């Protein structure tokens, strides 16, 4: 008998924190986020022990590349250092670059749906501030085909997503000034949204549409083609936990929680040029991203009209730009209309990234999928505090890994 997938709760760390500067290691990070996540879901370590006696709980860890950042592997097993309650609890690590914790959510949700477990704990995390920004960029290059796309290239990812902006210009005949202004508006919006979010890395930083438009200046230098620093997400330390539960558990405890309505998961070519070449006849530059969204609409039985808000993967302004048509908010090539008309603004009809997104909130790569999912949960359950949207019955998230290679979409709704 299959179960619905309920979202019990979760937690994230304050993405402003630099754990290296605090002198704390990954165990401190995990203890904090797991304890907070369990508490938010109304659970404690004794509950985990009790569930585990009957093999009803499991853990799913999302992380991209801890082997590089902190010399640590075997991340499923590492949870036993958080608390002895995890002795004997099934736990493994999932990796799909920046979509790692979405892969973990996918596995955790499948086990609930299948009736294998009653509670699944998803932990996404990354500690990135252990190295300087150039080394960090090089590590992240392993999310592309490293040997051909990243090795020996300074900041490979901004360059890849700069090419996405180039492709928009050549394919849709969009006015360059209009496109670049729209990208600046995305940046300014996400920084502004982050100011309401007490967990956001940039909540004390200054940004404006004007500053984001002044590319190529001393304080906003170009980093990848047409993209400048203001177009980029951040290097972040952080972790996020979400806790899923079965019908049995929810019924036993008399709970009413948000549920996962549907998902999509598609993998596009690893090499960005092949994605561009493959899509040359398509209406979409990123057709597999669009397909992932369509799959989620189909599985959830919902359409754009039903979605009140979106959390998307704005690793760069160009990726949020492309997401607008992928969600179906505009036709491809007309994304600027939604931005210029305020459709995706915090108080617009289809707000994107009310949390601040990866640009405003921060982007600890292995945590971002879980963080976006947590924000869907917070909005849908009405617990988003100062960044709560007035209408938030159903939300959709898009989390991508690499240069839009891995695509994950989840839809969360009131139960």
């Amino acid at each position: 008998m299959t179960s619905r997938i309920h979202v019990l709760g979760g937690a994230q760390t304050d993405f402003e924190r630099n754990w290296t500067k605090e002198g704390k290691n990954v165990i401190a990070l995990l203890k904090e986020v797991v304890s907070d996540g369990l508490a938010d879901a109304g659970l404690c370590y004794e509950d985990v022990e009790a569930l585990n006696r009957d093999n009803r709980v499991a853990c799913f860890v999302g992380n991209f590349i801890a082997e590089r950042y902190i010399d640590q592997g075997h991340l499923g097993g590492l949870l036993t250092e958080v608390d002895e309650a995890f002795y004997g609890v099934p736990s493994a690590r999932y990796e799909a670059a920046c979509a790692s914790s979405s892969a973990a959510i996918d596995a955790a949700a499948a086990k609930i749906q299948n009736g294998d477990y009653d509670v699944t704990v998803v932990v996404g995390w990354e500690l990135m501030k252990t190295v300087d920004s150039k080394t960090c960029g090089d590590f992240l290059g392993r999310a592309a085909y490293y040997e051909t796309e990243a090795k020996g290239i300074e900041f490979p990812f901004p360059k890849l997503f700069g090419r996405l902006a180039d492709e928009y210009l050549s394919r849709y005949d969009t006015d360059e000034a209009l496109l670049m202004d729209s990208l600046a508006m995305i940046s300014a919006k996400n920084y502004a949204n982050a100011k309401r979010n007490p967990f956001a890395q940039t909540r004390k930083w200054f940004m404006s549409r004007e500053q984001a438009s002044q590319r190529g200046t001393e304080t906003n230098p170009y980093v990848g083609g047409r993209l400048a620093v203001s177009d980029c997400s951040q290097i972040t330390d952080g972790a996020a936990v979400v806790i899923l539960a079965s019908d049995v558990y929810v019924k036993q405890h008399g709970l009413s929680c948000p549920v996962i309505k549907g998902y999509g998961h598609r993998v596009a070519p690893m090499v960005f040029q092949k994605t561009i070449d493959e899509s040359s006849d398509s209406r979409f530059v990123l057709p597999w991203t669009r397909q992932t969204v369509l799959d989620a609409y189909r599985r959830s039985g919902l359409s754009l009209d039903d979605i009140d808000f979106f959390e998307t993967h704005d690793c760069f302004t160009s990726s949020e730009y492309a997401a607008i048509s992928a969600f179906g908010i505009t036709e491809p090539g007309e994304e600027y209309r939604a931005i210029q008309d305020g459709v995706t603004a915090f108080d617009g009809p289809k707000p994107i990234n009310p949390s601040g997104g990866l640009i405003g909130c921060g982007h600890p790569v292995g945590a971002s999928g879980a963080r976006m999912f947590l924000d869907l949960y917070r909005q849908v359950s009405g617990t988003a505090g100062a960044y709560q949207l007035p209408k938030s019955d159903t939300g959709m998230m898009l989390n991508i890994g690499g240069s839009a290679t891995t695509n994950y979409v989840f839809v969360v709704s009131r139960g």
Partner: protein
Amino acid sequence: MVSRDIESSRRAARAAAQSVKADSIVKNLVPADYSMLADCVCESDLVFESVAEDLEIKLDVTRRIGDSLRDDAIACSGTSGLPITTLAEALPERLRSNYFGVHMYNPPYNMTLCEVTPTLYTNRVMFDVTRTYLTDVLGRTVVEVKDSPGFLGNRIGFYFINKALQYADQYKFSGGIDYIDAILGPFTGRTMAPLTTSDFVGLDVHRAIVDNIHTNTSDYARETFVFPEFAKQLVEVGRLGRKSNGGLYKMEVRDGGSKHLTVYDITMGTYRNKLDYGFPFAEEMVADLRVGDYSHAVETLVGNRSSEAQMCLTFLLEYVIYALSTSGEVGYDIHSADDVMATGFNWCPPLAVVEAIQLVADFKALARERLSESILDAVDLDRLLADGARSKYDYRTYLRSAK
């Protein structure tokens, strides 16, 4: 932006833009000098004075602002502790309602605290409009405080820092300055140890703040604001701290260019190498905090009976008590002290310290056990901690795993 000459104003505008990483703000900072003050003031909706922290200089500049300020415009002072009412009285009577204190902390992109101080004359509507602007547009953590020396942040912060300085003197045969800093390091809930902070701020500024508070306040902790004799001598010979390369600490560059941090030895009157004291309680707390074991770290602090651990705990307990009692006197609610210490000093704020201690012990019982009669007689512990208010801040982010 008005300063002594246009070139300085231009440089200041540039530095401001760099500090917030935004070239786009430079055009908002129109450089000017004092010969242009009258024109600048009469064109402005809000005039913010931030000249040297000297009452006579501030009174003079405030008078000049009063000569050209429009009736509907706001004027405020960025003073860190001089009397706002006295400054307001430098304005013509009809403009005194438009004046109040707006004390920002540095660096503003890191420290969001802004203490605002109305006077008897202040027009509440203008004050509230400014307050909303500071909160919503400038992203400040705005805390309304009374016109009291050092306001709230410096009053509490320098209570702790100056007490550390007095203890350095008292314990000069145990090591003095670095001995005390090793007891009150980042593992006790701050980015840097208190005397290192004083060295950053400068002993001259430190002295001005505590002298002002000592002269003009009269609570139970007044003597804690007496600036020690050895420190006066350092100020007199220009050893102010980091800004004069040598104060409480000094960075020495030795042969081959290697840098060594040295510390002023109060008994010898010379600088010596900074010592690694390796107190067992501190080592254990740092190891606990590294893996996020906050309970055990606090248990160590409370349970370890070495004189250093006891001194550390007493400092923290007294900090909480002084902060909460001063918050009632200078602020308007129990959270004011938390806001100022968290967002102005980046120290674990008092209510968050209480929560950390409550992990392993009853705070009130511990305070009664460890604090002196004179403090327990001066404050009403039950009333101070009556409503069991929870901190808005998380002690885990402040207790660092570093010595």
